[in-house]
């Protein structure tokens, strides 16, 4: 196995781990929503902070799963036109699409980093029935966007070096 292949697979395993954390966060969110509604209806006392924590859980689960979805080719593409192009042009189109994705999400990650720092600097908190600092939540946005940008870069390298094609042939 080449060095790149090892990096690619190791990164995939890491993203899988992030995905499992995201999955169990979703499961916990379900339990929290049920517990809140039940406690409110039965005992007239909602779970304190359930509303705010649900919001935070949503952010965490979305940003821990963005890159895994890209790793597994789950984000939507239209291949109507490109699959009719000659092989060379197809490859150029794929490279350009991956480069654009890498650049765009790197920009987004940079923006999210600034947003996280600003939140940390003022000690921003979630103000509601419960209080907790918000910068770790904003950091998750930065973290998820960075993972996604890195995934695009790895995809670009894989496409450019032809690793992907070789692997697909091997698997047939």
């Amino acid at each position, binding site marked *: 196995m080449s060095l790149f292949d090892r990096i690619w697979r190791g990164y995939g395993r890491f993203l*899988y781990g992030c*995905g*499992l954390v*995201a*999955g*169990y966060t*979703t*499961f916990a*969110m*379900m*339990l*929290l*929503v*049920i517990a*809140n*509604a039940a406690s409110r*209806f039965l005992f007239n006392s909602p779970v304190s902070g359930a509303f705010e924590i*649900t*919001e*935070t859980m*949503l*952010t965490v*689960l*979305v*940003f*821990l*799963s*963005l890159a*895994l*979805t*890209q790793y*597994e080719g*789950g*984000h*939507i*593409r*239209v*291949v*109507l*036109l*490109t699959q009719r192009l000659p092989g060379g042009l197809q490859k150029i*189109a*794929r490279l*350009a*699409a991956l480069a*654009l*994705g890498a*650049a*765009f*999400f790197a*920009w*987004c990650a940079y*923006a*999210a980093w*600034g*947003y996280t720092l600003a939140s940390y600097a003022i000690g921003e908190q979630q103000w509601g029935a419960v209080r907790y600092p918000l910068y770790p*939540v*904003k950091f998750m*946005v930065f973290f998820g*966007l960075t993972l996604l940008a890195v995934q695009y870069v790895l995809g670009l390298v894989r496409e450019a070096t032809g690793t992907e094609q070789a692997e697909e042939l091997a698997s047939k």
Partner: protein
Amino acid sequence: MTGLEIGLIGIGALFAAILLGVNVMVALGAVGAIGLASIVGVKGATAMLSTVFFDTTHSFHFSVIPLFLLMGFFAMRAGLGEDMFEATSKWLGNLKGGLAISTTIGAAAFGAASGSSVGTATVFTKLALPEMLARGYDKRLASASIAIAGTLAVMIPPSALVVVYGILTDSSIGGLLIAGVIPGVVFAILLCFATYFTVLRNPALAPVVRTESTLREKVYSLRLAGPLVLVIVCIIAGLYLGIFTPTEAGGIGAGLTLLLAIVRQRSLKALKLNQTLLDTIRTSAMIFAIIICALIFSKFLAISGVANALGGFLTTLDVNRWVVVAIIVGIYLVLGMMMDAPALLAITLPITHPVMMNLGFDPIWFGVFVVLLVEIGAVTPPVGINCFVVQAASEGRVSLEDVFKGLVPYVIAGFVMLILLCVFPQLALYLPQTMK
């Protein structure tokens, strides 16, 4: 270059990028961000990119999306789809397109509990698509019938989008919600007819499952539909008894289907919980990426002035009011190709609502009309959120092209529904007027 010119170039660039195979989220986000940077500067665009991801996801309102997805995946593990189709094939199997028709009926029933077009499309992709394909249904027909059925959840109350309309236009939300009932049911019937006639013209699309079952067997088969009916009844009852809100219904529904899945699989272990949860988060990541990037693009369209220019054009027209209606329909169809429904309503209603009120249309009627219109936009290419969801939830069983191509008869049904609303406004107005 003026903002308007940049806006038009951006629209062209979006279409080009999508057709060149760029991920739809990247096309929307990158074109939107570059467009924003060329109008408000790189610093301004970066500021907008910094807030939009957190602001959109740190929201209780949107927690319904992963929870409805979870509900769909648990429902699949519980075998609710197989059971439901066992039952419906006994009843409708001999009918042309029977399974697609029962999907529409099921989605209408489910829509009475759910307010999410995307959520309903997901659940029924999980429930109905594998069954239809296993029985030889055409991919296009099967996937498109599900994508369009999702829109019934928004037409039939409760509906988050209808509430958005009421707030944006200062109309009665109670009235609007009741107003959706009859058009929702009529639209469901139209969709069933669309399936029926499509299959009538080309019977190969949907092989009829010949089952010679007695009435006794048919009645006995109803028990199989029991678990799904139970879930729907629990959710509707919970909503009407004030036990939980429509958003919370996502969590409750997921919990109920989890219990059914555990019973059916006889243990939590056999449920393959890890796999189910990973399926859920993959699909929700896909949906949120599209929603957020569509927002970035619509911010660009707004600040470019394209949206405001349209309004100026409409108010200076001096023609028959039905010509204006036709133009507005055209605008929604074009913009609906590129934007998601709430963003589309927020941008367009300030322009279209006053124009329609000046022409003497009823605000409740226009609410039903415009919600149907933006929901048609939810299935048209290239940005058809319901189609994306169906494709993503199908786990590779269908391609995006399949879904879009299969939608032609259903989009025609949508137009028939729009015309029916124009000819018989009482479809929307009867209930709100008699309830007062």
